[in-house]
């Protein structure tokens, strides 16, 4: 019992951060599934949502600020796709990826400019910021809520993809880009929907993440972003349950590694995991067999 009491905080922290990675990872995996593009700007979108919250909540009450942040993030995600990726639809994959890196550079630098490079304190959201007691260890409510909310959202998303028309279109496009176009699927609409869903989840993830780690900086999105991407690859890119599982595994392992005292290596561990999975099983845990990865 004492052992559990001692180590529970690591696991709790791991599950909660894993859930937050999962919400970001879905954005990566869906975009990759359809466009075959690593959307490097996705992590920065997550950071931008954090800053929007900081500035909006300074003047607006929270019940207006929170929906507004989500809407603005979705709009930003939509615009990024329209401005930076759509013109390059016919260009080689490398160009689109460079464009994604450019967008990431742009968002980070803009955030740096607006905040003059200083960290900002994230507003306290009542209820979920409070402390509660879980089996003898104190933690925040958000830690407990995150995995539950993540699973609800993922279930909703899976239902959406399985049972709605747009979901069917998404599946078709991710299976075969050109043929689905010939079948009369409006490809740009589908892609926009993908970005809207991804951005929505990133905004929710950002709310949860920054409630736990209350400082927002211009580079706050890059590490969680990369880790979420690794989670997506680990779970098998294109697969939503895979991304979620991968994210939880990475979140928990990271905290166990910190708990073991290997604090220099917790970031490196994530990437080591990535390289191992890429070499051993490039299709990830749940990915479909595909030949264009290796």
């Amino acid at each position, binding site marked *: 019992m004492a052992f559990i009491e001692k180590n529970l905080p690591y696991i709790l922290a791991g599950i909660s951060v894993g859930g937050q990675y999962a919400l970001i990872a879905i954005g990566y995996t869906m975009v990759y599934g359809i466009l075959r593009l690593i959307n490097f700007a996705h992590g920065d979108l997550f950071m931008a949502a954090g800053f929007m919250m900081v500035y909006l909540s300074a003047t607006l009450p929270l019940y207006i600020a929170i929906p507004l942040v989500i809407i603005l993030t979705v709009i930003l995600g939509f615009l990024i796709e329209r401005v930076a990726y759509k013109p390059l639809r016919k260009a080689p994959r490398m160009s689109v990826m460079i464009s994604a890196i450019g967008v990431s550079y742009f968002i980070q630098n803009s955030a740096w400019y607006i905040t003059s490079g200083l960290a900002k304190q994230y507003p306290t959201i009542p209820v979920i910021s409070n402390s509660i007691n879980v089996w003898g260890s104190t933690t925040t409510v958000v830690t407990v809520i995150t995995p539950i909310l993540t699973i609800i959202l993922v279930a909703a998303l899976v239902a959406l993809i399985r049972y709605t028309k747009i979901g069917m279109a998404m599946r078709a496009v991710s299976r075969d880009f050109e043929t689905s176009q010939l079948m009369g699927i409006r490809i740009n609409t589908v892609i926009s929907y993908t970005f809207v869903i991804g951005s929505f989840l990133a905004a929710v993830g950002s709310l949860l993440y920054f409630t736990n780690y209350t400082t927002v900086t211009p580079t706050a999105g890059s590490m969680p972003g990369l880790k979420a991407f690794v989670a997506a*690859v680990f779970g098998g890119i294109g697969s939503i349950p895979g991304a979620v599982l991968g994210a939880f595994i990475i979140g928990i392992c990271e905290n166990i590694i910190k708990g073991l005292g290997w604090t220099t290596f917790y970031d490196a561990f994530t990437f080591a995991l990535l390289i191992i999975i890429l070499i051993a099983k490039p299709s990830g845990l749940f990915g479909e067999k595909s030949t264009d990865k290796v």
Partner: protein
Amino acid sequence: MEHLNNKQKILITAALIIGLFILLLVLEQFLPSSSMLFVVLKKGAIYALVVVSMNLLNGFTGLFSLGQAGFMLIGAYTYAIFTIPVEARPMVYQYFNGGIVKFTLPVIPAIILAGIVTAIFAYLIGLPVLRLKSDYLAIATLGFAEIIRAFFQWDKLGPITNGSNLLKLYPVFHSVIFPFTVAGICIAIIVLLINSSYGRAFKAIRDDEIAAEAMGINLAHHKQISFTISSFFAGIGGALLAMFQTTVQASAFRATMTYEILLIVVIGGIGSVTGSCLASFLFIACSEWWLRFLDNTTYIGSFKVPLLATGFRKVFFAVVIMIIVLFYNRGIMGTNEFSLDALIEFFRKRFSKRRKEDSAT
């Protein structure tokens, strides 16, 4: 005289290079050494080398690697570790009893060693990673760069790497000539390589892997060569950067650095050596010097110029880069090289036109 023959071309090129060096010497004599021009020239030359080496990989071989910062880190550390004078070691390695490396190498061998060590690391990393394609290769190399960074910050390696602390007090250069010479030689070697049969094989791989393989090019072998050589020069670039900065620390070699180098490659033109060099100098000059005023709140009379504040320079930069990526994706030079022929052709057209007009009158 239709075209210049090879001998003339070499002579003119040599003359231009000598001219450049004389110009640099003269500038150093007559300008105060504090001028920002020298900062830009030094850093520009180093970046030119690093950018060209990345271009060799991304532009000429079509391998989209994002490990550049990691390789520069290895080079910078190797150089610093082996050149810190023995008497200065207790001060640098203050938490590690002076470290375990108890000898010092001269500067030039240390720079070459920096390249070699980096190349060895790259070779080992390349074995598994180069089997991956395009974006998977990118993310895996990026991951390796992060792993390298964590490794060099590891406390247990402290006696060699000084943990996460600064390395300093190693020999540095003061004159612009040094980085220009080293970077110049390295870039020249890269150009020779690109024009050799290896270079043609690289380009064949870039344009169509399957076709290249069908023509009998050993893909794995050539990719490995390109990766290792590119990293060799990235390592040397890292060593030069360490000399330029006078101190070196692993935490500076983040993914952002790789992105910046990649964006310079794009500005210069993916697949153009001269474009890369040009873009490096332009980028460094803008970011360190010409555009610094964008960061300062400025008043014209009592009118406050809008938008200017800390960080505006970077936003401006990011916008320019996005415009280049989206609308001028060939960059300054595309895949062309800046050549004497083209220049002479350019002027001859003007002249011959005038001559015709002269003879007509």
